[in-house]
Every structure is written in structure tokens, then in C-alpha cells.
């Protein structure tokens, strides 16, 4: 690992058992309903593709499957040669989902552009979402 390699980490608590969350992550029928239609199978070595909207098709290979605990696949798209890992950790009656997207090489200008985003569209979208979120939660005190 070099100093320029970055990882994105996102986590969320879901009030559902790990068994249920796992099925949503590995069943193609379920994936089509909340994520994207795909030829995914939870088998190490299986090749599949994902339609990743603004980035076009992403090519993936399953590299680790630990039922109801961990799912890992490679994520190759344009200049990116990265790895996505889903971890499920039971928490009370629910599950914490930890998602890690590793391997953005910021020393590579093409990858850095992919990491930072090409234009302003994404940033304004994120700001709009933040504004929505704040409006839903009562907004800032002024």
C-alpha cells in the first residue's frame, strides 16, 4: 500500500437480521430490486458486470464469500482497479453494514479524477441531498 492509496468507507445500521441483509446482497432477484440488474453469483471466481450509471459498465470478480459475514469483489472500471468489501456485523436485533471501497491510487492522475469526480454535478447533487436531509430533520437552528 502506498501513501496515495485511498479507501472510501461508508456504514449504516439496518434494523434487519444479517441473514436478511445477506440475501439482499447476493440474490440477483433482490439486487435487481434495490441496486442493479446483474449476473452476480456468490461464488469465489465468478465474473459479473454491474451497470454503474455515470461510469458505464463495471467489471467484477468475486474474491471472498463468508456467508452472512463478508462479501468481496474486484471493481474494475476505466482507470480503476479497486476492491469492494461488504461486512455484516450483528448489532442488537439488527445489522451494521460496513462498506469499504479500497484501492483508489491518487498518484495516478486518471484515478484521481475518477476519485474526485469530473464535474460539479455530483457535488451539487450531494449538497441538495444534504439540504433535503436537514429539511427532514428540522433544519439548522438560526
Amino acid at each position: 500500500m502506498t501513501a496515495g492509496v485511498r479507501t472510501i468507507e461508508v456504514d449504516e445500521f439496518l434494523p434487519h437480521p444479517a441473514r436478511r441483509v445477506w440475501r439482499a446482497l447476493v440474490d440477483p432477484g433482490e439486487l435487481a430490486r434495490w441496486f442493479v440488474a446483474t449476473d452476480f453469483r456468490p461464488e469465489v471466481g465468478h465474473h459479473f458486470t454491474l451497470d454503474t450509471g455515470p461510469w458505464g459498465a463495471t467489471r467484477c470478480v468475486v474474491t471472498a464469500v463468508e456467508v452472512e459475514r463478508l462479501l468481496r469483489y474486484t471493481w474494475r472500471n476505466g482507470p480503476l482497479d479497486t476492491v469492494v468489501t461488504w461486512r455484516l456485523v450483528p448489532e442488537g436485533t439488527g445489522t451494521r453494514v460496513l462498506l469499504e471501497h479500497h484501492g483508489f491510487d491518487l498518484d495516478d492522475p486518471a484515478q484521481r479524477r475518477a476519485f474526485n469526480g469530473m464535474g460539479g454535478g455530483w457535488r451539487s447533487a450531494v449538497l441538495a441531498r444534504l439540504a433535503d436531509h436537514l429539511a427532514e430533520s428540522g433544519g439548522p437552528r438560526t
Partner: protein
Amino acid sequence: MPTTDDVFAAVANRHRRRLLDLLLAEPQSVNALAAHFDMRRPSVSEHLKVLRDAGLVSEERHGRERVYRVDAERLRPVADWLTPYEAYWRDALRDLRAHLDRNPEP
């Protein structure tokens, strides 16, 4: 006056991001916040202090309790800093949650 660097340093920690998530949902006391963590209350208070020093949260006395809330304006540089992939995965997790809430275990 906290700098943008202070803001980034404050959010460069999973526990503090979790605290911000919880406070975005609703203002609450340190005791209510601590119930969501394995760590002890003084540790939660320390993380809150970092967020407060960065200007991201403010506190208010309600009787014997201090209630913390997010100062949304200060979060703006952080939102601006989110990468497209981070936004992508946040959206994916939100969609996963909505899917599971609509289709719980039979």
C-alpha cells in the same frame, strides 16, 4: 474560529461521523448518544468536544442535561468534499435500507 482543516480532521473518524449522523436525525444529550456506542461516556464526550471545537455541533443546557445539535452550515465543506463514489455508496445503502424496510423477513 475553526478552520476547514479542523472540520475535516473532526470528520476523519468513524465514531464522530456516526455522532453527526445521530445528531442530524435529532438533537440529543450525551447520555442518549452514548447508548449507541460500545465506548464509555467520557470517550463519547471527548469526540463531542472535537466536533464542538470544529464548530460542527453546538450545545445547549436543558435543566441538568446538555443537548447537542448539528450546525448545518459548517457541514457544507464536508458535503463538498464527499467523493462521487462515497455519494454512490451512501445512496446504495439508503436504497438497501428502503428495500429491506419494505420487504422484511416473511
